[in-house]
């Protein structure tokens, strides 16, 4: 253990001296978060106004949910809902300034909710800012709770034979939430504040992978430098060498993600949900990303070509995991594919948090990420039996 710290310590000193540490854990995250926040527009907490609602689904469920939301006191107090027939009508209303924003229930809303409990709502916001975005988001959160309650009620009713009404109040008393809905903003040319709630964590995740890659690269660099061979001639287990690199990668990833989060919260007032949940997700995600990356670079013959594949891997995972393209907008099979990436799991975790979920709802993503981390750590351990040259 002491040896691992000695090796990590040297690595940290080197990264501090060549400034990569500062770049990775502070400058880049803050700059990225800033660019992102500016690109998406700053969230002005505006309440009130008229919100358009388009029900493309027309199912019993969507009609029920919209009625419930419209009738809920929180929504009624802050916005008026106006039903619009089509997406085009909503866009026109936005252009005319008749509505501040519009929430669109997609065609397969009811079916998808019943199948998987998750769905994506589209929000239209006008180009000049995000005035309606906050209100729209509030509605969606309300809808999310509603959808959950409705589906849960249906399930409880089936399971217990209770009348639907009673089942429903049972479910509501339970107050729990799940990753019901996420926002999928459809920006009329311009920007939207709501997107930050989805893409902020996405950025952090992509960034976490990059940070690990920076540390992992140094293993490849040491192979070229010959210091890896020299280290291997010392009485140090191969696994300790990789663990030392992994530790630095993990630290970089964690600090980089924390900096992304911190700057988006402190500078731009974003809300990612329960802070403890955010930190936990970061931690387990950083572990998973570290395990995966180290497994990739730890092959006995891994050379310079791996350096490129690290970046490709980081990007591929970000795309598949829904960090660059909204997960809930992708075809269903892609949503399944995303579960093969740590990013996909972490994204689900953050969706839970941004829709108001807490620690107790994070079990699935945390467990999945932990399994990925442990699995790849095992791969690394096995590969390193063969030596590290």
């Amino acid at each position, binding site marked *: 253990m002491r*040896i691992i710290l*000695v*090796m990590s310590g*040297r690595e940290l*000193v*080197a990264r501090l*001296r*060549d400034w990569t540490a500062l770049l990775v854990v502070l400058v880049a995250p803050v700059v990225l978060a800033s660019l992102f926040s500016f690109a998406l527009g700053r969230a002005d907490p505006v309440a009130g106004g008229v919100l358009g609602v388009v029900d493309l689904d027309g199912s019993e469920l969507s009609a029920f949910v919209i009625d419930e939301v419209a009738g809920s006191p929180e929504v009624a107090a802050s916005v008026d809902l106006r039903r619009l027939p089509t997406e085009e009508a909503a866009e026109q209303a936005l252009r005319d300034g008749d509505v501040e924003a519009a929430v669109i229930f997609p065609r397969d809303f009811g079916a998808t909710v019943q199948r998987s409990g998750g769905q994506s709502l589209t929000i239209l916001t006008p180009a000049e800012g995000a005035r309606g975005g906050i209100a729209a988001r509030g509605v969606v959160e309300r809808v999310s709770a509603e959808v959950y309650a409705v589906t849960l009620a249906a399930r409880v009713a089936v399971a217990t034979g209770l009348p639907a009404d009673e089942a429903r109040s049972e479910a509501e008393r339970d107050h729990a939430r799940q990753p019901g809905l996420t926002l999928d903003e459809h920006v009329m040319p311009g920007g939207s504040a709501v997107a930050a709630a989805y893409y902020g964590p996405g950025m952090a995740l992509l960034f976490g992978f990059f940070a690990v890659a920076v540390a992992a690269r140094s293993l490849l660099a040491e192979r070229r*430098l*010959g*210091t890896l*061979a*020299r*280290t*291997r*001639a*010392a*009485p*140090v*287990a191969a696994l300790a060498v990789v663990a030392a690199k992994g530790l630095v990668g993990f630290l970089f990833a964690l600090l980089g993600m924390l900096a992304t989060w911190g700057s988006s919260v402190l500078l731009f007032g974003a809300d990612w949900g329960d802070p403890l949940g955010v930190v936990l997700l970061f931690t387990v995600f950083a572990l998973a990303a570290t395990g995966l990356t180290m497994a990739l670079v730890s092959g006995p013959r891994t050379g310079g070509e791996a350096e490129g594949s690290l970046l490709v891997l980081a990007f591929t995972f970000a795309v598949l995991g829904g960090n660059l393209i909204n997960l809930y907008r992708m075809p269903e099979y892609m949503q399944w594919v995303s579960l093969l990436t740590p990013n996909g799991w972490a994204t689900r975790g953050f969706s839970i948090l941004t829709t108001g979920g807490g620690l107790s709802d994070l079990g699935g993503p945390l467990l999945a990420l932990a399994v990925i981390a442990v699995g790849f750590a095992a791969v690394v351990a096995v590969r390193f039996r*063969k*030596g590290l*040259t």
Partner: protein
Amino acid sequence: MLTAALECEGLVKRYGSLLAVDGLKFSVTEGEAYGLLGPNGSGKSTTIEMVVGVLIPDSGTVRVHGHEMARHPLRAKRLVGYVPQEVALYPDLTGRENLRYFGRLFGLRGQRLRRRVAEVLDVVGLADRADERLGTYSGGMQRRVNIAAGLVHEPKVLVLDEPTVGVDPQSRNAILESVERLVAGGTTVLYTSHYMEEVERVCDRVGIIDRGRIIAEGRPEELMATLSPGGRAEVEVDGDVQAAGVAVAALPGVAVTVADHRPRLLLVTWTEGADRLPDVLQALNGVAAVVRTAAVRPSLEEVFLHLTGTSLRD
């Protein structure tokens, strides 16, 4: 009987279809300096890397003071200091920091670490530049730190892979001197080179390696005696060079030529007898004044040619 500090048996390493090391076997007794002498690509570095446990042999065993490298790598490695052929240090750390780091990897700490780092800096004569970043050192200085890094933990067995490649004669001499001092102090040394005179100066015993096999082994003078009967010398004279040449050439079994660009330097060769230099000086007595004489060692090229009948491949 002396214990073997280092024992290699049946070492084999393949790179694809290339057999880089082919059943190599040698052993070095405690306190002995053993030289591996061979041309480029003969498998010296590959052998060394297997000896220090950086490379895993396809077959064969390495034992350091009885500890088998494959079975107890940590125990074996603790006893070995490795100086790789290429400088293998961190350019963004200072010389001292590099040495402290590698000392720590061998478990040194505190007072002992500080003392050892200072000692090895003295050994390689870099104490005054120790706190500058390694990247700012000259190539020769980096090589010296490279050696020091293999010494910090006071290894019982020091393994040096061509430590003098690419350094000026002065640094080279300094390096050879420090190795000689270590040998005198009882350190077991394994040394590779493709310079006969280096190996001869530093090593008690030499193995000549070609295509991954040891093709001859013995004490340097034994090897040279069996390899090239006779000898060579350079004699610089003052006076009538022509007459001096004639006088020397008159000796039986001795041939002489004048050096191309140094008209007063005679190159003398003889085909029999270990040392005919006294005869040569005798013959010159009263003919020309002798300014300087030097015995000329057979080059590795010649030794190699003699042993294999082929010239050194590059």
